[in-house]
């Protein structure tokens, strides 16, 4: 009978009317590798924050190493050996790699003075543990996302951690780095350290995890050894619905070319990307983070324009040097970072909806608020956006509805090509399904849809073909009959 390291009982937490956790239990044994899973918004982030002391639970208690806490501080949590690696890593872009790695140690040591020699020693040791070599004196802002995460992991491993919680750790790592991470996790387990991987994709952690706890809508849904779960049961527990193996097959075998890209390249991001899209098709582009999948979208939209290659819309070539060129050519882009890139949080829902196509609401120089209002209400209805009216600030909407507004914003411009980067990240199940339906309809109407995503079921179910990117090059193209091979091909 293994000792229980951490047990949270009956945790309730609300934020002004939103019940994030409604009586959740959570248990971690010493030295076990556990997966905490759930869709976005299920409460797993809140649970982590409660356990780390960042949030105070409204009700319930947390028992760590036999010590009972009703009100946990971050210092208590860290003292008990709980370390969290958040998705944004909490690292300092302006400080060096070495200092970032050693910073917790510095603070815990309560020292007043800094010994750079010691810092270098510590950082080097931590990196050796992971088998990584990074330039210790590089300011972290110069690092790629993957390497930033490595720095964060190095830091977390330094303290006398008894439990390390990693929030979506594999998203930014290549398969080699994932393998190495898993090796380290096993090493840590041998030392008696427990690891919790917070994740929403089973296949990524299936090989390493021993037990899994699933949350949905702030409540416990399942808890048990990993071999009792397969893909189907996993998704059922996460979403509450049976998995729908609805696949998209274009009805018309159209030969009308709507979009063609030839030998597109961008220095340092991707090269030799070529594909052709016909009416009715939905193209998927996938690959690990850093493979160039996102960069293709941003190049086609003119954010970071391509440095070589040609783009043809409806057979005519267009040059895309900036965003205005792209929009004029009929390309729209739903970015992956909704909060920073897609939304104007403090502004109204309505304004967020019409801002891209705002020129068409002008009647002789001046904006017609009537026209804008009717445009706003039309889109709210058409995309089934759960909003009381167009007036409230958009930050009051849920992630799924916010994403629909971003979608509406671009549809308002009557695009010919719609590129979406991570279209259903952080979106609830209902909205996700709605968005997929909308995309299919658009494709059938002749709008070229490109979905850039790492959500394999999403790609399998919605795309007529998928391009797999590896390290900036097109590694593989799967057509609709080969979709089942997707996950295998990706992990090669």
């Amino acid at each position, binding site marked *: 009978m293994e000792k229980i390291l951490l047990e949270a009982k009956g945790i309730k937490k609300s934020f002004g009317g939103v019940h994030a956790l409604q009586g959740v239990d959570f248990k971690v044994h010493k030295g076990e590798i556990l997966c905490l899973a759930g869709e976005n918004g299920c409460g797993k982030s809140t649970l982590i924050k409660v356990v780390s002391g*960042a949030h105070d639970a409204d009700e319930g208690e947390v028992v760590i190493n036999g010590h009972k806490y009703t009100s946990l501080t*971050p*210092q208590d949590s*860290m003292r008990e050996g709980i370390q969290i690696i*958040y998705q*944004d890593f*909490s*690292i*300092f*872009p*302006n*400080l060096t790699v070495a*200092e970032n790695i050693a*910073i*917790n140690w*510095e*603070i*815990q040591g309560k*020292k*007043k*003075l*800094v010994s750079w020699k010691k810092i270098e020693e510590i950082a080097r040791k931590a990196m050796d543990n992971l088998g990584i070599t990074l*330039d*210790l*004196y*590089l300011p972290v*802002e*110069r*690092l*790629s*996302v993957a*390497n930033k995460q490595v720095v964060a992991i190095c830091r977390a491993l330094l303290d006398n951690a008894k439990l390390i919680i990693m929030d979506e750790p594999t998203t930014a790592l290549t398969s080699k780095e994932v393998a190495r991470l898993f090796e380290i996790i096993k090493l840590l387990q041998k030392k008696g350290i427990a690891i919790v991987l917070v994740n929403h994709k089973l296949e990524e952690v299936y090989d390493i995890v021993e037990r899994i706890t699933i949350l949905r809508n702030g409540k416990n849904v399942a808890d048990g050894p990993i071999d009792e779960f397969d893909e189907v049961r996993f998704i059922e527990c996460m979403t509450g619905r049976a998995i729908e193996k609805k696949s998209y097959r274009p009805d018309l075998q159209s030969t009308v070319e709507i979009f063609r890209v030839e030998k597109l390249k961008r220095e*340092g991001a991707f090269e030799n990307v070529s594909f052709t899209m016909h009416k009715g098709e939905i193209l998927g582009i996938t690959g690990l983070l850093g493979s160039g999948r996102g960069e293709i979208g941003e190049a086609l939209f003119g954010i970071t324009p391509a440095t070589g290659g040609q783009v043809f819309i409806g057979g005519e070539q267009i040059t895309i040097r900036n965003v205005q060129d792209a929009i004029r050519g009929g390309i729209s882009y739903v970015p992956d970072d909704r909060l920073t890139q897609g939304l104007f949080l403090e502004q109204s829902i309505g304004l967020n909806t019409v801002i891209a196509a705002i020129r068409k609401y002008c009647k002789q120089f001046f904006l017609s608020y009537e026209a804008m209002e009717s445009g706003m209400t039309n889109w709210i209805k058409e995309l089934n956006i759960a909003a009381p009216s167009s007036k409230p600030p958009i930050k009051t909407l849920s992630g799924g509805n916010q994403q629909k507004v971003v979608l509406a914003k671009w549809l308002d411009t009557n695009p010919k090509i719609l590129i979406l980067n991570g279209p259903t990240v952080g979106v609830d199940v209902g909205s996700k399904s709605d968005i997929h339906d909308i995309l299919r309809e658009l494709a059938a109407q002749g709008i070229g849809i490109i979905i850039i995503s790492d959500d394999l079921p999403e790609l399998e179910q919605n795309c007529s073909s998928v391009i797999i990117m590896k390290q900036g090059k097109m590694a593989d193209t799967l057509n609709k009959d080969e979709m089942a091979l997707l996950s295998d091909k990706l992990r090669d």
Partner: protein
Amino acid sequence: MKHDLKYFLGKNETIIFLIIVIISIMIGIINPAFWGISTVFNTARAMLIMLMFAMCEMLIIISGGIDVSFPAIATLAMYGTTLFMTKMGIDNIFIAFLMGALIGVLCGLFNAVLTATFGIPALIATLGTSSLINGGMLTLLGSRELTIIPESMEGLYKAALFRTELPDGTVSTLTPLIIIPIVLCIGFYLILKYTMFGRAVYAIGGDAAAAKRVGFRVKRVQYMVYMLSGLIVGITGIVYTILMRLANATNLMGTEMMVIAAVVIGGVRISGGKGSVPGVVLGVLLINIVSNNLIIIGIPNYWQKFVIGIIIVLGTAMTSIRDKRIVSSPKI
């Protein structure tokens, strides 16, 4: 890996240093008297005040804030202390520095409350306190220039560390007050590099939210930054009184821009998190050499403000562009 030649050549400090060398050579060609010890003494004297202000501003900007109220604080320290001492007949240099420091700390505390506790954007907060302090002082204490200063201050004014004689018979001296900024620079350098407080300043300037999560006491550090800065600024006011041999109510006002420019040119990022003492020293040196020698280059008096403005804009533009290039360069 650690520090190779390319790294040194690309550093901001190196570039500024080269510019200073080039400009000095240019000035020296036009006016060979530039290459004399007296130039060093005079430059030191001219730089003194700005250097002390720049150290404080550097600390605040690295921590993610900004302060345009320091001239007002220094003026209050100088004017208030001198008035008080002459009225009460106190003649003790240490009391002068003490009072100046105290006034400075209290003003710094006020700034800290507004920015750290009430979250008012630092620019607006310090614009407000600048008007409040200077306007209030002028109202309550008057605006007459005080030319009679305590004896002990006069004494320090007359003292000299080194003297040298110029060909025309005049004597150029290096004031002992130069020790204060030298000590200050060394002190700040050590604090920023070798104390946790200094590292906290950098961390908070880099990402205040992350700093809080990692365990730094963000508000506490912010309070200390503004109060320490206030203390030094107050002392600077007293130094100014000694140097100028008078206490003036409005001279220092308006110098914010030059100091901030010197700091930014010296490599301190306006958004916080980056900067170093050597860079700021070079920045102050550059601004001083240029503004004090414009006459020699042949730029008439009334063009000076314009030329200095252009230099400031160019200098800050260059560092901004450099920063942006670094941020958007390909990631390793």
